[in-house]
């Protein structure tokens, strides 16, 4: 049984590889690729919110920075054409640098103030891209971005090759996040999340540890931005609003903050809600004579997910054992500490 659960990730990864080949429906593959980009975003935000416990409400800003970095350096905009594969590193690096720039002055703030500052940052970044129209194309954004190519094969408008790139990035990110969680840094994050004062007194440098979470989370987002922009062939400031940050946050909350399988599940549920379930339900309603467009209720549903999950199941659908015991703090503290120990010491 234990062996089976150890094999599970590989089985799921195998399913993810063959899924688009079986489905062979362009729309579905396109959906899978977009959903994959959001899985990447959710994995990154999970490092910040789930592991380190820092509520970042402006996460879409790093997504925007990754996307615009790619768009400016791989498009006819300035006639610079750096290859996509190089840009993956550049975009995640630039996003990480901005993560540090935002984090360095603000990470001393208390949790809820930090949330508001990140929210402000999330508003400023797209607004700045909108205003600096001589470089960014203003409200129209930047179009006809370069398509990646590998060994002479040029990605077209077909979503399939992008899907595999995203899948590979997800696999790398899951491995990275998983190793980080068990590392010294990951345990420091969790210590800070539980009790910052105690963590500081135990000798953890809380500022650099939190900065690392911000930078690493931002770099995931930069990766997602780079590949998402190249797939869409377009960036524009309206793709990166507060609703994107909240959508990613609801993926985390729904799935289970801090738990990688939970986060992936949450983001897949919300992506399919967005792209399949709501349009389908609207069609069904139309069929029985009710003209009510449920796709307009997207934000109502994100909001309801946030409220109901926090009220009734704060650990999410697939929690890590440790997180569950923390959030039900009235339970056995000793048991919580035991699981903390068990998870930290493999």
């Amino acid at each position, binding site marked *: 049984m234990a062996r089976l659960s150890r094999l599970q990730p590989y089985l799921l990864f195998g399913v993810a590889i063959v899924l688009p080949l079986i489905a062979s429906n362009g729309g579905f593959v396109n959906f899978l690729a977009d959903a994959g980009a959001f899985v990447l975003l959710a994995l990154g935000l999970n490092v910040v919110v789930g592991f380190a416990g820092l509520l970042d409400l402006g996460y879409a800003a790093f997504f925007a920075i990754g996307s615009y970095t790619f768009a400016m350096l791989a498009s006819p905009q300035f006639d610079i054409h750096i290859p996509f594969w190089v840009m993956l590193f550049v975009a995640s690096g630039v996003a990480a640098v901005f993560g540090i720039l935002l984090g360095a002055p603000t990470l*001393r703030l208390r949790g*809820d*103030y930090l949330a*508001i500052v990140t929210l402000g*940052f999330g508003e400023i970044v797209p607004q700045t891209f909108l205003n600096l129209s001589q470089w960014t194309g203003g409200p129209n954004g930047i179009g006809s971005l370069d398509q990646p190519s590998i060994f002479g094969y040029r990605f077209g408008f077909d979503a399939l090759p992008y899907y595999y790139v995203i899948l590979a990035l997800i696999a790398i990110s899951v491995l990275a996040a998983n190793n980080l969680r068990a590392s010294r840094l990951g345990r420091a994050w969790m210590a800070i999340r539980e009790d910052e*004062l105690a963590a500081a007194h135990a000798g953890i440098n809380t500022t650099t540890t939190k900065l690392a979470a911000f930078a690493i989370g931002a770099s995931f987002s930069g990766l997602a931005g780079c590949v998402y922009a190249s797939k869409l062939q377009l960036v524009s400031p309206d793709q990166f609003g507060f609703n994107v940050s909240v959508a990613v946050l609801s993926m985390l909350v729904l799935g289970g903050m801090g738990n990688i399988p939970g986060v992936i599940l949450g983001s897949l549920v919300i992506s399919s809600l967005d792209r399949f379930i709501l349009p389908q339900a609207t069609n069904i309603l139309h069929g029985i004579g009710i003209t009510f467009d449920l796709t*307009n209720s997207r934000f109502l549903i994100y909001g309801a997910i946030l*409220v109901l999950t*926090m009220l009734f199941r704060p650990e999410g659908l697939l929690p890590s054992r440790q997180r569950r015991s923390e959030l039900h703090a009235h339970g056995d503290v000793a048991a919580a500490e035991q699981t903390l120990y068990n998870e930290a010491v493999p």
Partner: protein
Amino acid sequence: MDLLLQQLVNGLSLGGIYALIALGYTMVYGIIELINFAHGDVYTLGTFVSLAVLGLLGVTGVVTGPLLIATVVVTMLAAMIACGLAGVVIERLAYRRLRNAPRLAPLITAIGMSFILENVMQYWRGPSPVPFPDLMPNPDVHLGVVTIAAKQILVIVLAIAMMVLLRLFVYRTKLGKAMRATAQDREAAQLMGIDINTTIALTFLIGSALAGAAGFVSGVYYGSTWFFNGFSAGLKAFTAAVLGGIGNLAGAMLGGFLIGLIEALTTQLISDQWSNVVVFSVLVLVLIFRPSGLLGETLPAKV
């Protein structure tokens, strides 16, 4: 120079609206240390309720004389009552259960409530801006080079009057004393026989009613609104509350007027596209260099 003086007047009246919203943020933060994210949307709700009431009254344009006063009072009271009740319901549904949960939990439900309110208002009045009838006759007052519109006087007078009433309530009545006690130490207040739940609900009632009043005057002031209006207004008002010193009533007022001035001057000197960027930068700078705000006292961290 003339334009600058004119922008100062505009900034003060804008600031009156932010100040009214900021009072609600600061009261709620003072008592339960929660950034009530849905507060900005309660403010928008105030504008929409005022619109509905004006529709019921059949008011579509300028009214004069005693009728104007009656219209303003009735509409604003309706908006205040509706928003006050909305605030109490939000607290009951989304925050009360999480009072002893980790701090970020109620903040997340607050964001959720904000999204729910926005979506409900979008169903109600559609996704595009909705015009608000121009109630006030416009006998502009000319003071030298500066022109002050009647609606600007309304905003400033109303904001100051509300502030005075609120101060009297908080510092001179028994319920106000209960509120201050609860803010200082919830458990001790409870041991002294204060009903915590009622006191917190009352705080939400008053704070949200002030947002409702702000919603009404902002409708008159701007002449239109839309469902998403509360997002940026709420953020600016929160910035105002932090700038003045969160938890401090006079601070919220001062912060509101300052943010209004900053916004008007940015519009004048740079461009209105940058006003959000400037206001958020102010927020970040205040939080970094003077987190207790202009009038707030430094509190030791609660361990």
